[in-house]
Each structure stands twice: as C-alpha cells, then as structure tokens.
C-alpha cells in the first residue's frame, strides 16, 4: 500500500456512549487505511459500531481516543480550529480583528465545516433530503452552503448546471422540480448521492445506502456506486449485508469494536 496514495488513515480509534447508568464501548482501537480510488465496504452486525466509525471518518463525530488523518491532515486539529473560529465569531461578531483571527485559525488548523463541505460527501440510509426543497435545490445545497448570498449569485449558473448534469447521469433529469415526497425510495437515494457528489468530494461515505430499498432498487444504487468508483471516486460504505459488501473492492469486518482481518 503506497503511503502517498493514502486518503484516509485512522489510528487507535476509541468511542464509547453512555446509555443510562452504563457506558457502552463501541470502538475499541480501530485502525484503518483507505487508498485513493478504493471502494471499501465495512461490514458488521447491527450495533457493531459501523455507523459510528463512518461518522468519525467523515468528521460528523469525534473519537474519544485516536486520530483520523485525511490526506495527512489531522481532523482533531480541524475540530479545534473550528471551535476557535466559532468562539471568535461569537465574541467579536464583526470587524477586521475578528476576520483576521478567524482567517488565522483557519490557516493554522483548517476548518471542519469546510472539510465536510468540500472533502467528503455523505449518503445516508434514510436519504435525509430536506422536505422543503425540490430535487435541484437539494442537490445544490452543498454548493450553496459554502457560499454567501452574493457568492451564490456568481456561482448559481455553474451549480445548477453541475446539479443537472449529475441528476441526468442518475436518470433524474425529469424530476428536478419535484419534491422528495414525490419520489420513490430509489430516486431519493440517487438524489442523495447527487447531493453528496455536488462539490466533487475526494471521499464518498455511504451509510447503509441500500438499507431502506428493495433488492432490485438497492442493486441499482450499487451500480451507481460502482460506476462512480470506476471513474475514480473513493468510497467507504457501511452495510450489514454480505452480498452488498461483496460489490466493493475491499471488505472490512467490524466486530466487537475492532476490525477483524
């Protein structure tokens, strides 16, 4: 495995949750390397910590111990940098000093929100589309999130064109003005994939992407993921189904909070 080609490296990840009076240890020292262009499936029984691991890899959650490096950058440092930036925003609110300090913190540590926006794309089991937005708006959401109103007006043409291109690619070209409730499960998941790919992320994280679909529709979604991977997209997918996991290039089994094999 080439170190230069490494996109994601997790070392000694530990995570526990408090459930009532007891503390449940979900991850007990997980180590994981993902190469650029890989399609990795993480398989495990329900409650084995697959989703927790995926959330930590995508910076939606923080580990109690251990580190995640994305292209050599430590996500923990990004979390710290973002916290400082948020604190500066609350306390200084406006002004040149606030801007200088926030820019400095961003340069020094990176920004976790920017990481989530540009580096990773999430696909969830239950699609998680916003009910109030139509298909096109849901797809362009990550592009909107990274821009101010004025910035958006400059980029809107590009963003709409990119979203339409993705939606056409996923056979949703006729559905761009539809609301999520007007779509089938498979269509919703394809919109969710299009949204995840909007900002051309280096890493696509899919949490049980077929878990809520029938086998034929689920197979269609896996076809989409396979095609994306063939085009060079790095994908980490979580599933509890062996047959689905076999569609990936590499399968990792998570059991009892550790990776086996």
């Amino acid at each position, binding site marked *: 495995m080439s170190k230069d080609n490494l996109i994601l490296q997790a070392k000694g990840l530990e995570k526990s949750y408090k459930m009532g009076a007891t503390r449940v240890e979900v991850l007990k020292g997980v180590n994981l390397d993902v190469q650029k262009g890989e399609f990795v499936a993480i398989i495990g029984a329900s409650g084995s910590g697959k989703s927790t691991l995926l959330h930590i890899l995508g910076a939606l959650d923080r580990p109690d111990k251990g580190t995640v490096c994305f292209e050599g950058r430590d996500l923990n440092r990004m979390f710290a940098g973002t916290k400082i930036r948020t604190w500066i925003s609350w306390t200084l609110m406006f002004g040149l000093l606030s801007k200088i300090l926030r820019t400095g913190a961003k340069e020094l540590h990176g920004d976790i929100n920017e990481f989530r*926006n540009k580096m990773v794309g999430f696909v969830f089991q239950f699609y*998680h589309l916003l009910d109030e937005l139509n298909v096109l708006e849901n797809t362009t*959401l990550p592009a909107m999130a*990274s821009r101010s109103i004025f910035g958006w007006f400059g980029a809107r043409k590009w963003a709409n064109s990119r979203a339409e291109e993705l939606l056409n690619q996923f056979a949703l070209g006729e559905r761009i003005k539809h609301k999520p409730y007007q779509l089938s499960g498979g269509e919703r998941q394809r919109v969710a994939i299009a949204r995840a790919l909007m900002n051309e992320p280096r890493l696509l994280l899919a949490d049980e992407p077929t878990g809520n679909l029938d086998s034929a529709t689920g197979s269609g979604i896996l076809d989409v993921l396979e095609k994306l991977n063939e085009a060079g997209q790095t994908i980490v997918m979580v599933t509890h189904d062996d047959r689905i996991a076999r569609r990936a290039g590499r399968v990792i089994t998570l059991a009892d909070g550790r990776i086996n094999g």
Partner: protein
Amino acid sequence: MYKLILAMRYLLKRRITYFAVLAVALCVFIVVIVMTVMTGLVRDFKQKNHDFAGDCIVGSESLVGFAYYEDFVKELEQNQFIEGVSEVIKSYALLSPQGRDVSRGVEIIGIDPVRHSRATGFGRTLYYRKNNVEKAFAPSYDPNLLGCVLGIDLALDRHADSGYSYYDSPVRLGLAITCFPLTARGALAGAATAPVNTKTFYYSDHSHSGLARVDDSVVYLPFDQAQALCGMAGATKRINAIHVKFKGGVELQAGCDRIRRLWQEFKADKSGESQAYLLDTVTVQSWKVYRRTLIAAMEKEQTMMGVMFGFVGIVTVFIVLVVFYMLISHKSKDIGVLRSIGASKVDIIELFAGFAFMVGGLGALVGVLGGWQFLLKINKIEDWLFENFGYQVWDRTMFAIGDIPNEVSPKVLAAIVVAAIAACLIGALVPSWQAIRLKPTETLQVNQL
C-alpha cells in the same frame, strides 16, 4: 442562500409558523391601536394645556396677587423674543343666574381678550366671537351690557355623543358674580362694611378649551372688572399672573430662563417699594411646569400602558419561543443534514434568526396594516357601536374628548415594528441555541426520524 430559501420555505410551508405570525400580528395590532390612541390623547391634552396657558407664566399662587406688574409688562414687551403678553386676574367666585335662587362656585379669570388671545389660544376656543375677539365681552343681543365668557359646560348641555346644543346667538342670561376682595395683606378688603363685591355680567360667548376642569368651572371676565371685583384695582394695582407667548423658534426653556432673569432684575429694582414683599411669592414657570399636576397624571397613565404592553411583548416572545421550540424539534433532522454538508453552528443560528426575522417582519406588517386600517375607522366604529348598542369607549358626558385620536405616528410605528422583530429574535434565540448544541450524529439517527 440556502438559509434564505429554507427560512422562506419554513415560513410558507409549516402551518405552525402561521400561528407565530398571527400572534405577532395580533400583539402589534393591539399595541399600534393603544399606543396611537394613548399618544394622541396625551398629545392633545398637552396641546390644550399649552393653548390654555401660553408658553410661560409669571404668577403667584396667592389670591392676593402681586403689584407693579405694569412696569414688568412694559419691559417684557420691549423684548424681541416675546410675541404676546397678557395680564391675568385669577380668583374664585360665586355664580348665580339671575332669577334663580341657586349659586355655584366658579373660577374667574380676568383678561383683555385681545391681549390674552395673543399670548394663549383663548381666541380659538370662542364660538360666537372667534373671529372678533375684541368683542368677546360684548353680548350680541346688547353690546352695551357687561359680558362674560363661560366655560362651555357652564353654558351648554353636553350630549353623550360629545356634541353640544349650539344656538345661532347667545341667549340673554344675566349672571351675578360675587367675589371676596382682598387687601395686599390678604385680609378681606371691606370686612367691616361690604365683605363681598357682586356684579352682574351677561353671557356673551362660551369657551371650549377641551379641558374638562376649565370648561366646567371657568368664567372669563373683562380684566378691569375682575380686578375691581377682587379688590386689586386700588392705588397700587395688582394681578395674579402674566401669561407670555414666545416668538417662533424660541426654545421653551431658554425663553423661560430669560424671563426668569428679567424677573430677578425687576424684583431687585422694586425691592424698596411698599408692596415688594408680594413679589417674593411670584414664580416664573413654563406651561409644562405650570400644568404639571394634570399632565403628570396623564403621562403616568401612558407609562403604565407602556409597561402593560411591555408584558404583551413578553407574551409574544413566549409564544414565538414555544412555536420555534416545536418547529426546531421537528427540524432536527434538517439541522443534522445541514451540518453534514458543512453548515457551521453560526449558519444554523443565522438560519433560524432569519426565519424569526421573517416571522416578526411579516407579523408586524400584518399587525401594522390591520391597526392602521382599524384606526382610520375607529371613530366610525365607535359611532356605530354607540348608535346600535349605546356603547362608548369614553363616556363623553364624563370625558372632555371629541373624536378618538387616530393620527398614526411613523416613529411609534417604527418602534413597534422594531420591538416585534426583536421579540421574535429573542424568542428564537433559546431554541436556536439548543439546535446548535445537537450533535449531527444524534439528529441523523434512525430513531430521530
């Protein structure tokens, strides 16, 4: 941009937000009406008091009055900043209509009608002689008789609909005015022989000042007649007050201060005179201070209303808080999704603050427009209620007001709109803060759906 779009969609697509908008609109509607009416009443009341008193009053609370006023009046009239000066006699008397065996206590005010109209709004309060003030004390039925101007409630009957029964000309009515003349030392002038002065005057006009106490108890008499009745027309003549009006552009306090300085100098000049001790009782006051006991009560009422409606504002904040709490509880998944695509905590706060701003803005707009429309028709509505149900907001047989004030002040409207939006932002703050404390992973769990 997504914040604006989402805030707009939450506003339009979530039925619960209609309740928040409605709550804000109702509060704004009520506050606009009450504040406009209260502000109008206080403004009218102040204006009427200002018209009654002029700008500045040099006077004594003592019924004895003060002497040497002619010199001071001359001095005042030489000053460029003064528009008008009026010497005034004020005292109490008994009023007995001729041919009737009854009498009642009244306040008498002795004035020169022309001079008093220059210093105050007296001329505008007259009915028959409004455009002929110099003949205010000349009854139209016999100009040679001694006339008097009665407060309108002494002369005419007031109806419940705030109107009066006017006549084309004043009815011939003789009124015996009985006064207790006082010496410069405050004793009854004719204690041994004739302790009272009585003279008959004829109703020549009435004065409608809009001030209940004035309209119900004041009788205006010719200056020299009132001076004689009160025992102030001796060798050293006395009066009770001098009412002064400043020229336009003279600031009230500055004008009063100048007169105060002039008075101090005048008093010092007269210190050797025999009745100089009377000058010690004289004060120089602005009309606001002179009428403070009446105005302060009204202002206090206005402040109390303001405080009460402050509580209405707190209720609005609470309603908005509850609505936002419910909405954000339903929208926790959206927050998780937005965080997963890179929205920061500040972005989430901005999203809900924008939403609160729209709720507040829309509610305030609806409330202001509704309140404005209602105010435009408030007097017609009151008339209709009175004609059909006999109901009046203010019983006009008791309160000396005409139409309900409905002049909307842009400043008051702006303040109410800003307060409504601020209330919504405050109401949205707590749930928004809770929203950003949610971990994205918690909100995206299956059991959160």
